[in-house]
């Protein structure tokens, strides 16, 4: 039996959050989704500080991270996660509207695990999430070696 773990969704757009949740639901991946509205909140959650000071311990199965965020942007959050020995193992999926090549390159440079451009077509979006959800949320243990330190890059 598959155990659904917690998903951290970081997105400042309530519409996107709603759509993402709907898509996850359609994919029957509606396990616990924690929503952070900006980069700072996301980090607070991960480090169990601020409003998340009292949350139960444990890392999310996956972080779905929007690129463009208020306060601390997505790339900065990614950088902090991948630069922290404690958090590095958490799979991070960039979920973004941007097709800009430089964002993609930077994300991979920082050690992102997957990069998904949100398609305009909702069905495509649902399909994308389905693949991601199955891969990251269903499997308990992230495959070893799937996370690389930024300075391990060639």
């Amino acid at each position, binding site marked *: 039996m598959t155990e659904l773990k917690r998903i951290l969704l970081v997105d400042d*757009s309530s*519409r*996107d959050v709603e*759509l993402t949740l*709907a898509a996850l639901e359609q994919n029957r991946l509606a396990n616990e989704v924690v929503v952070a509205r900006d980069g700072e909140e996301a980090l607070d959650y991960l480090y169990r500080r601020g409003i998340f000071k009292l949350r139960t311990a444990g890392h999310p199965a996956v972080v779905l991270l929007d*690129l*463009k965020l208020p306060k601390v942007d997505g790339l900065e959050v990614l950088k902090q996660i991948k630069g922290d020995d404690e958090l590095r193992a958490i799979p991070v999926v960039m979920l*973004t*509207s*941007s*097709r*800009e*090549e430089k964002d993609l*390159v930077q994300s*991979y440079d920082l050690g992102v695990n997957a990069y998904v451009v*949100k*398609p*305009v*077509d*909702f*069905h495509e*979006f649902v399909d994308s999430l389905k693949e991601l959800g199955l891969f990251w949320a269903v499997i308990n243990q992230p495959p070893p070696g799937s996370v690389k330190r930024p300075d391990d*890059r*060639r």
Partner: protein
Amino acid sequence: MSVNELISVSEIDLLRAEAATLQQLMAVLERTTLEQTRKLEDAIRDRTAAAEELRRQLEVTRALTESMGEGVLAFGADARLSFFNTAAEQMLKVEVASVRGRMLDELSLARPQTIAAIRRVFEARTTIRSDDDLFLAADGEALPVSYTASPIVSGGEFVGAVVVFHDITARKRADEERQKLLEVEREARVQAERARETSRFLAEAGSVLVSSLDSSATLERVARLAVPSFADWSFVHLRDASGALRRVAVAHSDPEREALLRSVEDIYPPSADDPYGPAKVTRTGVSEMVGVVADRILEESAKDDAHLHQLREFGFTSYISVPLIARTRTLGAMTFAMAESGRHFGESELLLAQQLADRAALAIDNARLFAEVEEARRDLEQRVLARTMQLQEANRELESFSYSVSHDLRAPIRHISGFVDLFRKRGAGSLDPAAAHYLDVIADAAKQAGTLVDDLLAFSRMGRAELARQRVSMDAMVQEVLGQLQPEIASRAIEWRIGQLGEVTGDAAMLRLVWRNLLSNAVKYTRTREGAIIEVSRTELDREHVFCVRDNGVGFDMKYVGKLFGVFQRLHSADQFEGTGIGLANVRRIVGRHGGKAWAEGEVNRGAAFFFSLPRESEERIDGTQTHPARGR
């Protein structure tokens, strides 16, 4: 005792014997005497013959000496003049009688030093010679001669001396003539050399003047060239921006003198009211030549006593100062001066200096014009740079704008699309057909807006992204694109005529987009044709490969061909043929970035042909120059 008494018989015998002996002696003596007398007579006869012979020889000698052109004088051992030939008589205008028997020392026929020289013959018994001396004729006139004085030795005995002399007046005159000619020739050679140096100076100066646009360096070189051949000193003074005269060049063969002059002139710079020299020439625009520098000029020129002292010390003998005039403006003056060489300038040097000044002025003027142009160019460059930076700034803003568009505009479109979908799922059963249609339109519009935004961003990226050049098989690429177009092609009966397309060098992703645009266009615009034909071909030109996609579709009017490749320019309504109007703009941009061109031909209802060329040269700079490093994840 008496003889008679005392003589005995024996005594008488003795006496008789004695007498006999005496008689014999007498006979011998007589014989000897006769013999001696005969011998003497013989000797006297011989001597007479010898004297005769001597006289004869003397006559021959006299005849010989008389007939030769040389003067001959002979002296006895006692240095008395014993012989004087006619030639000597004539040359020295002397009567033999008046001088014969006179002592050598008493003769006034030569200068004392010559007499003394000849005297040496008597003392040292050696021969002396002189090729160039003077004898003195009786009338006091000097006679140029060459002579030989030799001792006369007879039977080992010094018996006198003979002087043989030759009139060298003609030779002397010829020598002098030759000397004069040599002098003239040497002078001519010096003149020619000077002329050559002058013309060389002018030529070199001329070439220096045209060779450089840096006027101060040029003038320095010209000043340097003038010394020492043309002048001992040369100076160039120019007016500066304020109109004050400034020395820009000074040259002298001795650097120390040059430095001294600099320091003197730094203390006493030329001033506008100078009565002489560069300042005056610059003021009046009239050349000045002083053939001989009089002290008065120095006095009038000196600013004070120390200055006068210095000016005198330089020892200027002559100078020329000529104005540098260009386009009716006097820029300054060029000055040449003579000093230690003691030379003086003349009209020809003045003329030359003026020619030189004219060229120099022209060069200075050119240099100034060039500097002005250069200044203007720099200014322009500065402005272009500033404008470029503004443009770059604008470009950055535009980039960040398109980034915002990408992120911010796509989001609401995506939301419309997403929520329409969610709505449809929720109310699927309760929607009447019209409402369902409205939802379809909303969804379509959202999708179209999304495509538009995506295409626009892709177009902007095409202009910015670096080209990742590599070998690309056009055959494979066209097949790949046709595979992607399969959904549209599948239901159609299209006759494909695809030729050999070969390989090119270029950015694969971009070239793929070119093919995708052209092929999908061809498919799209032949949609209304029963027997659609699409041809893909390649033509080789000298410097480029030309690819062509030709169809027999709806075509277009050539008068709108200019609009075809513009962004958002469409020749068909969206209802007839869907599209964002960015595809061909992208084609042109991509091909342009590869160094090629894109163009089209068409006719309404008869089809269209789209061409693009790629330069062959690009094939040379492939491999190893891949601009995109492989990206690892």
